[in-house]
C-alpha cells in the first residue's frame, strides 16, 4: 500500500500550534477562577456574633467602606501609585540614558545598576529599617555627628518612621530603589532599538540635548514608557513589603489586608479590601491599555 502523506488544513495547524499552551492556560484560568470566586464569596459573607456565616451579606463591604483605616489606606495607596510610578519612570529613564551612552567601564556600571534587583525586597526594607531607626539608626547618628567624617547637623534624633509623610516617603524610596533596574532595562531596550543615526541627523540639524530628548527619544520610546508605566503602577498598587516594614501604622491596601486577616481575624473585610485592590488593578490595566492604543495611533500617525 502506497504511503499517503497526512494533510492538515491551516486552521487545524493553528489549533495544533496552540495545543502545548493548553495545560498552562487551564492552570492559570482555573487558579484565577478559584481564587476570585473564593474572594467574592468571602467578601459577601458575614460572621455574626454567634459565629454563624451569613451569605450573601453586604455587612463586610459596609464595614470596610465606612472605616477610616480603609479610607486612609486607599489614599496612601493612590499616593504611592501616583508618586511612585512617575518616579520609577524618571529614575529608570535617567539611568537608561546614562548607560546608553558609550563610556569607559559602561558594562560594569550597568551591572551595578542591576544589583538592587538581586537583593530580596525584605532585605532592602530591613536595611532601610536599620538605617532610619529611632533613636539609634545610622542616619540619625550620621546627622548628629557620631561618625567622625561628618559634622553634626542635628541635636536630637528624628523619628523617621513615626512621621506619616517621612515613613511613607522612606518606604516609597526603598521601593523605587529596589525596582528601578526593571524600568531601566525596559527603557534601555527601547533606546537600543533607535537607530543612532537619528540622533546624529538631529544633531547636524541643530538639535541640542533637550530637543533630541523630547523630539526624538521620548516619542520613539513611548511604547517602552507605556510598558513601564503599566507594569510599575500595577506593582505600586499591590505593594506590601516596604510599607509593611517601614511605614508603621500608615497602611496601604496591601498591608491593610494582612492586618485585617491576621491581626483582626476578619477574613470577610480582608477579602473586601483584596477585591477593591483587584478592581483598582483591573481598572488601571484597562485605562493603560486604552492609553497605549491611543499612543500607538498617535505615534503611527504623527
Amino acid at each position, binding site marked *: 500500500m502506497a504511503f499517503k502523506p497526512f494533510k492538515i488544513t491551516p486552521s487545524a495547524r493553528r489549533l495544533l500550534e496552540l495545543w502545548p499552551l493548553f495545560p498552562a492556560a487551564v492552570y492559570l484560568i482555573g487558579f484565577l477562577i478559584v481564587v476570585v470566586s473564593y474572594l467574592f464569596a468571602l467578601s459577601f459573607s458575614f460572621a455574626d456574633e454567634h459565629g454563624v456565616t451569613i451569605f450573601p451579606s453586604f455587612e463586610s463591604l459596609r464595614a470596610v467602606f465606612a472605616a477610616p483605616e480603609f479610607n486612609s489606606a486607599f489614599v496612601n495607596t493612590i499616593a504611592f501609585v501616583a508618586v511612585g510610578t512617575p518616579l520609577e519612570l524618571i529614575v529608570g529613564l535617567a539611568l537608561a540614558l546614562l548607560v546608553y551612552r558609550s563610556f569607559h567601564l559602561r558594562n560594569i556600571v550597568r551591572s551595578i545598576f542591576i544589583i538592587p534587583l538581586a537583593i530580596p525586597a525584605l532585605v532592602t526594607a530591613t536595611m532601610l529599617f536599620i538605617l532610619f531607626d529611632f533613636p539609634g539608626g545610622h542616619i540619625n547618628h550620621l546627622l548628629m555627628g557620631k561618625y567622625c567624617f561628618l559634622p553634626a547637623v542635628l541635636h536630637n534624633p528624628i523619628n523617621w518612621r513615626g512621621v506619616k509623610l517621612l515613613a511613607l516617603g522612606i518606604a516609597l524610596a526603598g521601593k523605587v530603589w529596589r525596582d528601578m533596574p526593571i524600568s531601566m532595562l525596559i527603557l534601555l531596550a527601547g533606546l537600543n532599538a533607535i*537607530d543612532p543615526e537619528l540622533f546624529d541627523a*538631529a*544633531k547636524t*540639524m541643530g*538639535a541640542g540635548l533637550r530637543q533630541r530628548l523630547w523630539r526624538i527619544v521620548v516619542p520613539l520610546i513611548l511604547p517602552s514608557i507605556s510598558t513601564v508605566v503599566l507594569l510599575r503602577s500595577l506593582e505600586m498598587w499591590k505593594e506590601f513589603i516596604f510599607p509593611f516594614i517601614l511605614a508603621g501604622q500608615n497602611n496601604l491596601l496591601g498591608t491593610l489586608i494582612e492586618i485585617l486577616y491576621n491581626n483582626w481575624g476578619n477574613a470577610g473585610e480582608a477579602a473586601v479590601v483584596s477585591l477593591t485592590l483587584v478592581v483598582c488593578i483591573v481598572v488601571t490595566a484597562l485605562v493603560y491599555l486604552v492609553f497605549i492604543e491611543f499612543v500607538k495611533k498617535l505615534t503611527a500617525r*504623527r
Partner: protein
Amino acid sequence: MADVALSHIYKSYDGNPVIADLSLTVKSGEFVTLLGPSGCGKSTMLRMIAGLESIDKGDLYIAGRRYNDIPAQKRRLAMVFQSYALFPHMSVRENILFGLKINKVAPALMEEKFTWAIALFGLTGLERRLPKEISGGQRQRVALARALVLDPDVLLLDEPLSNLDAALRESAMEELKRVHRSVGKTIIYVTHNQVEAMSMSGRIAVLAGGNLEQFAAPQAVYDDPQTLFTAGFIGSPPMNFLTGLLQTRGTETGIATEVGFIILDKERQVRCVASLGKKVIVGIRPQNISYTDHFSARRVSDTSITLKAELFETLGDRNLVVARGAGDTVLRFLMKQDDDILPDRQVGVFIDGRKIHVFDPDTRKSIFK
C-alpha cells in the same frame, strides 16, 4: 557656500589610526567625492567634518574659520546618511521642517522653503506620509530635501544611494547632479562606488587605509592614476598588473615582462627616464588591450603579444576574456560581442603604449614625472 580645508588630520580608535595625516581642500561650490573601500576612513572623515566625531590632531577650516571645537549642532552643515535617518514618527512634512523648527525659522519662510523643497524633489502629495509609507527613492529625496531646506554652507552625503537598486541609483545620480547645479552648494560625497564618484564629482579624493591616494578630477584619476591602489581601484574590469624591468631596447623604451617587451609611447618614455633599469609594476586596463582582428591600424607604440583565451564573461555590450600568456601571466581584455574567439585558442592582441601605467614597487607610486 563655503570651502572646506582639512589640514594634517589624524584620527585613531583605540590607538589604531584610521586617518593618518590627511590634508585636502574642497573649493566653495565644488562636488567632491571621498572614494575608497570599506574601512578606508571616508565616513569617519565626513563625520569629523560634520562634528559627529572628534579630530585627534590637525585642523578643520570651513570658510576660513577653524571648526575643530564647534559642536555639530552649531555648524552650518547638513548631512544625508546612508540609512537616510528619517524620523520614523514624523511625516514627510515634519521631517523636512524639523531643522527649520529647531532653528526657529519664521513660519512664513518655513512654508516657503518647504514648498520649494517638495517641488524640487517631486514630493508633492506625500507630505502627510510616514517614512515607512514611501519608497526607498522617495525617502532618499526626503532626506535630501530635509538637508537642503536648512540652506547649509556644506552638504555632506554619506553613501546616500547605496540602498537603492541599480535603476533608481542612475536616476538619483542625475537628480543629485541637477540639484548641485541648481543650488550650487559645496558637496562632499562619500561612496565606495566608483561609478557614482566618476559620474557626479568635480574631483575625487581616493582614500585607502586612512591615506589620501589621489585627489583629482575623475578623468585624471582614471587616465593618470598616481598610485598602485588608485590604478587597481578605479576602472571596471580592474587593471591588469605585471612585473617587469624598465629598459631601453634600440630606440624604444619599455618594460621587459614575461609576456614580452611592452613599448611605451614617446611621451611616457620621456617621463620615466629617471627610473630606467629599475624593477617596476606595469598596469594595463583591459580596455587598452585590443584583439588584433578588429584593430587593423596599429600604432608604432603598440605592443603585439600572443595569449591563450581561457574564460569568457559576458558584460552585455562586450565580453571579458581571461587569457594566459607566457610565464603563466593572466591578462584580462575586452572584445566586441561579434568577435569570434574560441576557448583554448591562441589569440593575437596588442597593448596600447599610450595607456600604460608604470609604478615603483617600493613606493607604490607612479614613476611618471
